[in-house]
């Protein structure tokens, strides 16, 4: 509005920085439903990514995201006591994904989702994403989730250990073994 008044000389103000999750959790604990959509904007991508890496199915990942948000809404005043909301969300996501996997029938073949996507619609990215997704599907669930938490959530091994519920050493070991297997599979594909 000011830009119009000044003859368009001023540039539009940059969008305000997103509210921190801690504030959003406080708003939610007060029963403010509008905070839900702000949490979704901030965290849905990461929750969905982890769910996708854990379940390997787009439909299951969507169910996990829904479960996490329902659980979040049910916490009420307890949300105020959560010191690290991001870690809490990742932990709840992981548990919800494990629940979904338990419920999934072993006889039913899942439709394996693409676990990675390129930044644009470049064909080269698509080929790489497909090759890597295929290799990721062949890793164990634990190795895949640790790779996600390290590479995409950028957590330390200590934080990964807390999220996954294993010692730091085990988290680091899973990561290294997973990365090693992944490279081996990719090298074998190249040959």
């Amino acid at each position, binding site marked *: 509005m000011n830009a119009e008044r000044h003859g368009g000389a001023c540039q539009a103000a940059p969008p305000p920085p997103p509210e921190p999750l801690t504030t959003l959790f406080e708003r*939610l604990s007060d*029963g403010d*439903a509008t905070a*839900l*959509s702000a949490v*979704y904007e901030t965290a*849905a*991508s990461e929750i*969905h*990514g982890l769910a*996708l*890496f854990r379940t390997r199915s*787009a439909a299951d*990942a*969507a169910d996990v*995201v*829904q479960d996490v*948000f*329902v659980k*979040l*809404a*049910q916490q*009420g005043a307890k949300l105020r006591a959560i010191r690290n909301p991001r870690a809490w969300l990742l932990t709840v996501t992981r548990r919800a994904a494990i629940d979904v996997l338990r419920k999934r029938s072993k006889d039913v073949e899942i439709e394996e989702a*693409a*676990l*990675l*996507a*390129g*930044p644009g619609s470049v064909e080269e*990215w698509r080929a*790489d*994403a497909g090759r*890597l997704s295929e290799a990721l599907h062949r890793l164990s669930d634990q190795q895949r989730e640790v790779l*996600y938490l*390290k*590479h*995409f959530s*950028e957590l330390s091994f200590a934080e990964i250990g807390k999220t996954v519920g294993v010692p730091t050493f085990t988290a680091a070991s899973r990561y290294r073994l997973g*990365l090693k297997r*992944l*490279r081996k599979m*990719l090298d074998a594909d190249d040959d």
Partner: protein
Amino acid sequence: MTDHERPDSPFGKLRPPGPPDELEARVLAAAQLALAQPRPDPWERTWRSSWFRLSWAAVFLALVVGHLAVPDGPPLPASTPTVARRETASIPEIALVFVPVDLTVASVR
């Protein structure tokens, strides 16, 4: 530079695909419904808890099984009265001796 963009990272600029657009409405509707529902108090939650019911049933069953399965102990020895009790029980009856009383006028005088 983040982890997944490091030259040694196998992922390069690849990232997991974001959630589908239609998911947001579905998730927020479910979450708002959950937010609007009143939360039961702790006692009610405990009473409704399947774990609580299961543990209650398990304890009850254990008591019934214990009652039926545990054999009776050896019979108690027959009570033998002590000497004192025996003596107390066998006190001889007091022999009542009636003294004749002369109720004539002469005796009064």
